């Protein structure tokens, strides 16, 4: 066991901290108040550093950063409260394309994604298939040289500002569901696509996207025809592992400690002097250290080329479930003042805690619900028989 980072990774962490100090402060989040969790300047700055390309192997035109460097970048960004969503979708999509895409996609789209010029989005989930993602019904039919795509996707977050969507489609309805899937990268300027906003209980907006006889050449296909499930597995593992979400809590905890230290209750006592509050805050900090362990563990595995399906599930499960609890407890601690949303100039710390409270439920849903992750741990880690 050795939990120290190699010196070059520590140096990279220093570099990242300096970058964030120069290129990000929380006021930049004001642009996200319309629900689009994206800060274009930050994204551009990340691209300029070559960090969007980081985890993609050098020989494939990426940054050749190790998994350890990726987790450090992810960690520092989350600790600084910088949104990682766009970076995540970029890295995952680029990795998928480099592994499964045509030369056309590798040569045209990947560079644009990695240099920050183009944005992409995920198109897995459908109105009728969420956890059961392999049940996707959006059809792609070969028609001469073209594919004709018809269907609908839910939770195509960022579609309204993105250039592409990586789309899971059904190309063979007559075989077991996992065996008839094919991926495409679809440019949003292709005729036949409609994007409708999906507002949420939190600040962020998502989208539903509709595909009506969308025509694509075979160049846009990703992976084998009917080989979509292999692509999906890679994508999901990235999403549950290094793709982030392990450090959602620290900004909320820090803001909570700040509140507890600098405010008084109606009876004149400070929350921070209440041992019940202190115990909850320490428990939250312990959870953060556990998340850190999981994050470094996944990075270590990835760094050695090992897959970390189950470890990614554990990380996601633990991080999101504890994040929900932290938000609840810290939000409660603020009493009535905690109810003020970011729209109120009086909201403490820009409404960070209240916003996190409303956002937190979805973290146990998107990218694999807690129930799905528990199934995976039960079967994949404990070797329990498939649930009845």
């Amino acid at each position, binding site marked *: 066991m050795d939990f120290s980072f190699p010196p070059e990774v520590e140096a990279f962490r220093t570099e990242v901290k300096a970058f964030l100090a120069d290129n990000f402060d929380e006021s930049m989040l004001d642009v996200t108040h319309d629900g689009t969790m994206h800060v274009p300047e930050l994204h551009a700055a990340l691209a300029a550093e070559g960090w969007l390309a980081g985890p993609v192997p050098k020989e494939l035109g990426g940054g050749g950063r190790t998994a350890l460097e990726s987790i450090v970048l992810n960690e520092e960004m989350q600790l600084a409260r910088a949104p990682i969503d766009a970076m995540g979708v970029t890295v995952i999509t680029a990795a998928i394309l480099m592994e499964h895409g045509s030369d056309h996609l590798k040569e045209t789209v990947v560079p644009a994604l990695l240099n920050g010029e183009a944005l992409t989005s995920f198109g897995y*989930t459908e109105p*009728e*298939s*969420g*956890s*059961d993602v392999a*049940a996707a019904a959006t059809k792609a039919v070969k028609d001469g040289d073209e594919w004709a795509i018809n269907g609908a996707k*839910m*939770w195509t977050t960022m579609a309204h500002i993105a250039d592409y969507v990586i789309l899971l489609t059904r190309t063979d309805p007559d075989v077991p569901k996992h065996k008839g899937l094919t991926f495409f990268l679809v440019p949003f300027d292709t005729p036949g696509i409609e994007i409708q906003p*999906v*507002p*949420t*209980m*939190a600040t962020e907006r*998502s989208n539903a996207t509709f595909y009506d006889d969308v025509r694509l050449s075979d160049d846009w296909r990703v992976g084998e025809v009917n080989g979509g499930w292999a692509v999906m597995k890679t994508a999901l593992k990235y999403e549950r592992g290094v793709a982030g979400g392990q450090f959602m809590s620290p900004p909320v905890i820090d803001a909570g400690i700040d509140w507890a230290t600098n405010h008084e*209750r*109606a*009876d004149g006592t400070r*929350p921070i002097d*209440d041992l*019940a*509050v202190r115990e909850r805050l320490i428990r939250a900090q312990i959870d953060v250290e556990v998340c850190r362990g999981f994050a470094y563990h996944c990075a270590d595995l990835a760094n050695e080329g090992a897959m970390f399906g189950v470890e990614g599930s554990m990380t996601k499960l633990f991080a999101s479930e504890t994040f*929900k609890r932290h938000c*609840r407890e810290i*939000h*409660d*601690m*603020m*009493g*009535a*003042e*905690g*109810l*003020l*949303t*970011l*729209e*109120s100039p*009086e909201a403490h710390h820009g409404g960070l805690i*209240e916003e996190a*409270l*409303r956002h937190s*439920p*979805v973290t*146990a*849903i*998107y990218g694999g*619900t*807690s*129930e799905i992750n*528990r199934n995976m741990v039960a079967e994949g880690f404990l070797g329990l028989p498939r*649930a*009845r």
Partner: protein
Amino acid sequence: MIGLMRTRYSEDEVAVRDAFFDFFANECPTTTVRAAAEGTGFDPALWSSLAAMGAPGMALPESLGGAGAALTDLAVVADVAGAHLAPVPLIEHAVTARALARAGGHDDLVAELAEGSTLATLALRPPTGDTARLVPAGAVADVLLHHCDGVTSSSRGNAPGIKLPNTADLPLAHRVISDATAIELDTDGWNRTVDEWRALTAVAYVGLAKRAIEIGVAYTKERIQFGVLIGTFQALQHGFADAATSVEGAHLLAQRAVWALETEQPGASRLAGMALLFAAESARFAADRSVQYHGGYGFSEEYDVQLYHRHATAWILQLGDPAAEYARLADAEFGPVMGAA
């Protein structure tokens, strides 16, 4: 009153419940809740209709224009109002009016409140300086009751405050206090008022929670994933079963607290505090499970379950941090903390 140990609504109470359930089902679909949220968080038309049903004055003395019903009857209405997230401050209004009635000397005002033509509320936390912050219904109430340093005061005629953007779009606003007059309600009388708020809010929480579970269960009986209804997954069933058990327990506790206040049992105040804490926690758990088992749709604004989640979060916080409520109950139970400043 003859002891009966009747833990279920009596026939009369069922009749009241059914009448108000139909009323809210018709007059307060979630489109009404959503419309109110866009404005002050209050629906004046709904309030008028509710006043026409006699709800605001229901548990006020007949001599003051009320219907002379018991707090337990009012609780039946709070239950169904909670289930519908009704954008009317019925609980705040009623407990404030009851406080003024108990204080005496405000007969005309109480009569207006019984009618519902004037809207009253209370500052659940003492004002700081001349401002009561984040007052429930502060954005819409005409009359404000508050308590500070052992003195309960009433003020009227100050303009309602501006609704502050908040988690559940409640009509929360700061109120600047001026022209307040002390009323004959000592600290015990004030505490009783807040206890009534606690117990009735607990009942409303139960209404909310039961509905949140209903919505969730209904969804899982329709939604198919992996070729089966997701309601057949044991993990979901057990989550709902724990929630339902907790909510049933909260129901029995909240109703007992209201009954204890009504009949002035010893320990009524303790039960009221306990009921609110437990009901809030149960309702939050129920709403959380229901959102979770909706998957992504639970998070979308379009589905109603998120409204239940946000209201479950907000209601108790109008009073303050639950940890402070536990500490308050502990002080009553164990005495003050020794060594505390």
